């Protein structure tokens, strides 16, 4: 009697991002069989490191993947999206740079700077979360405030256009730790993934978030602090913004408040949607969003490899996005389901006739 859903049924929503990545990989293999070759080489600073398109995809998607994790949580809890993540990451990066420029850069100051920018980003997260949870404002509108002025705040913190920071420690964070062949941002994403997995394993964050996202009133009557959970989701997203802001600063060695992680909010939302998570909130799978982020980055890298000019990449990206969502749309799914049904019926008829 007890019917357990199989692995595939439970993870059905991961099919779309996985298939998109797979399709891109197959496409690339046909186009250029060496596209996915990975090789060991020695970089400028004398480290033996892994290079190759696959590594650069994983590496390049790091900021996006971290943001997509936080965005998934906010989407699930609030039923809306935070469009201020790029601006908030710029603010966090700006704080990071400000602290580091204040003195000599040592491991301690880097940690202090990171913690400080986490705190600042969390405070802004609480601001967004309060507008959403307490004042019941649509997330997209509530975060429009920070979207409008966030990058200006980032500029104001440092009071200059693009302050630079340089230190071997930052190089280690932004590219490679000496002796480790894998780019550090990939490790950071993995670490974030592990942390989220542990949080979901050892707390009830997932259940609470889903309950609040699906039915806030019922969640409250079951003793869940719905307002608190929403604000918490925005705070966690704030930390994700801080992490990705710091990765970006460490990678580039400077902070340009206008261009750092520009329009990444759109990509982050897209990653959540491609990952099969409902933008209306409720049930979620964070792995889907991370896969979505890698799918987006695979696409971008493929286009660059095809020598599409960087400014025109967006157009091609748009076409692929539309293809993905059209294939995943309810109407197309329904039509597909009807087709399968008809084939099955035809087969059954055939059998009966036989």
């Amino acid at each position, binding site marked *: 009697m*007890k*019917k357990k859903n199989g692995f595939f049924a439970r993870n059905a929503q991961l099919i779309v991002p996985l298939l998109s990545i797979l399709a891109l990989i197959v496409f690339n293999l046909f186009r250029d069989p060496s596209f996915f070759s990975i090789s060991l080489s020695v970089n400028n600073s004398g480290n033996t490191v892994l290079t190759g398109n696959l590594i650069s995809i994983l590496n390049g998607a790091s900021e996006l993947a971290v943001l997509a994790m936080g965005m998934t949580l906010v989407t699930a809890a609030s039923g809306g999206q935070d469009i201020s993540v790029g601006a908030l990451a710029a603010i966090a990066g700006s704080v990071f740079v400000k602290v580091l420029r204040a003195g000599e850069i040592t491991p301690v100051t880097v940690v202090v700077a990171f913690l400080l920018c986490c705190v600042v980003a969390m405070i802004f997260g609480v601001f967004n979360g309060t507008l959403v949870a307490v004042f019941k404002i649509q997330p997209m509108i509530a975060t429009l405030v920070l979207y409008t002025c966030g990058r200006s705040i980032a500029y104001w913190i440092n009071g200059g256009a693009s302050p630079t920071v340089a230190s071997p420690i930052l190089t280690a964070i932004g590219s490679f730790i000496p002796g480790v062949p894998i780019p550090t941002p990939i490790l950071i994403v993995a670490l974030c993934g592990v942390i989220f997995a542990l949080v979901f394993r050892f707390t*009830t964050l997932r259940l*609470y978030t889903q309950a609040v996202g699906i039915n806030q009133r*019922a969640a409250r009557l079951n003793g*869940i602090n719905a307002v608190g959970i929403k604000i918490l989701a925005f705070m966690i997203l704030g930390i994700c913004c801080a992490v990705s802001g710091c990765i970006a600063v460490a990678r580039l060695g400077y902070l340009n408040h206008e261009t750092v992680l520009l329009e990444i909010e759109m990509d982050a939302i897209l990653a959540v949607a491609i990952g099969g998570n409902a933008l209306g909130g409720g049930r979620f799978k964070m792995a889907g969003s991370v896969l979505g982020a890698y799918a987006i980055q695979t696409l971008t890298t493929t286009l660059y490899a095809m020598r599409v000019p960087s400014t025109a990449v967006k157009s091609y990206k748009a076409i692929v996005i539309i293809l993905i969502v059209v294939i995943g749309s309810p109407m197309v799914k329904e039509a597909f389901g009807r087709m399968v049904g008809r084939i099955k019926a035809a087969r059954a008829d055939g059998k009966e006739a036989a």
Partner: protein
Amino acid sequence: MQNDVVLTMRGICKSFPGVRALHNVDFTLRSGEVHALMGENGAGKSTLIKVLTGVYGKDAGQIAIEGKEVAIRSPQDAQASGISTVYQEITLCPNLTVAENMFIGRDKSALVPWKEMERKAGELLRSLDIPARPKQQLSSCSLAVQQMIAIARAVDQHCKVLVLDEPTSSLDDNEVAMLFKLMRDLKSRGVGIVFVTHFLGQVYEISDRITVLRNGELVGEYKVEELPQLDLVSKMMGKELDDLSAISVSGKETGAKGETVYEAKGLSSAACPNPFDFHIAKGEVNGFTGLLGSGRSESVRAIFGADRVTGGSVTMNGQSVKVQKPIDAMRKGIAYLSEDRKDDGIIADLSVRENIILALQVMKGFGKPISQADAEAFADEYIKALEIKTASTDTPIKSLSGGNQQKVILARWLLTHPQYLILDEPTRGIDVGTKTEIQRLVLKLSSEGMSVTFISSEIEEMLRTCSRLIVMRDRHIVGELTGDALTQDNVMRTIAGGGN
């Protein structure tokens, strides 16, 4: 007098994947009659209505209006053939004016004739005695008035068949009376009304004929005066009922007083501004009664801390406690099954298992998740104990029937092993069989020492289960009835205020 048949449905069949919802069902409606469509949950009432109104396509069968066969593929088709429907949930636009809601989507002209529309709407509202103004924004009207506006819209479209799907479920008695007056008015104008409801009393008050469905099949069509209430119930249930009143005997015997479990003095909340005193003993079943809006739900919500508590002191088992939020109450062993199952109870997209463990999980705390294996065991235990019909523990609760959803919520609270259980309308909108099961369960729990507060719109149900009734009127407690004074007559008189 007006016995010409206006609608006939013959041999209607409708299947969903894995379920045969309707099999060869006939239904006949005459003009100028109110025809009640009765059946338990899952009997096929709503499917039949949805086939009639074009929401679902039918697999087989014919529908004829005034003898002419019609094809109904969409709600628009249904409207065009003179079938109008007023659903339980208001299907009007809250942001538009009353007049717009009555005329939008009907006129094909490119421009909106505001003046004329408002004039016509005013006339119609007056002729049907509906207390609304044409220029008013719809969301500022009460639910009952919104429903009447929906009916007015249907009437103005010269509908021949008016389908009322559970129209009274969120109305108080006054509003029901208003609605019935309107229905009688329409009846005299020759409209055939299909009336779907769970309230047996209302069926006998207004209907002329009753059609009973069971398990997707037609049981029969009866004239109201030829079908006593008990027969109706047994036809809906499909078995001779082991008379519901039989369980009441054991009920009152368990009303023995133990020590006081919960006591509140001067309790008030944001939604329940008038302070009240309340107490309940171990193993006692008591109830709040009164008309909808009399403050009975608000009172129990105050006990649970569901609305902001504004004053009063609470003692439990002799110790003073603070209950400000639901979680405080839960930690003290109070459980509250809310009145509105859909909005305040179920977490629709979550599985049955997650819905069952939710309250216990919250009590254990944020950092102590219940393991998958334990959750599975708890869910299985209660699915078995309460006979919840579900495909698996992974099934989303939204795909269960109303009665089974209610049992899941009940399981959620029983799992917390409360010493005091509050049930606010646990039997609303669920089938008769489950209703009886829940009443039995209440009595069983109380005999095991649990204190229960039970609220129901059906007084018979409360008389059967409760040993003490607290009567409310206009947000004040106006009386308390126990022992021999517990009769329907007395309750009614106290509610109406004619007792003294």
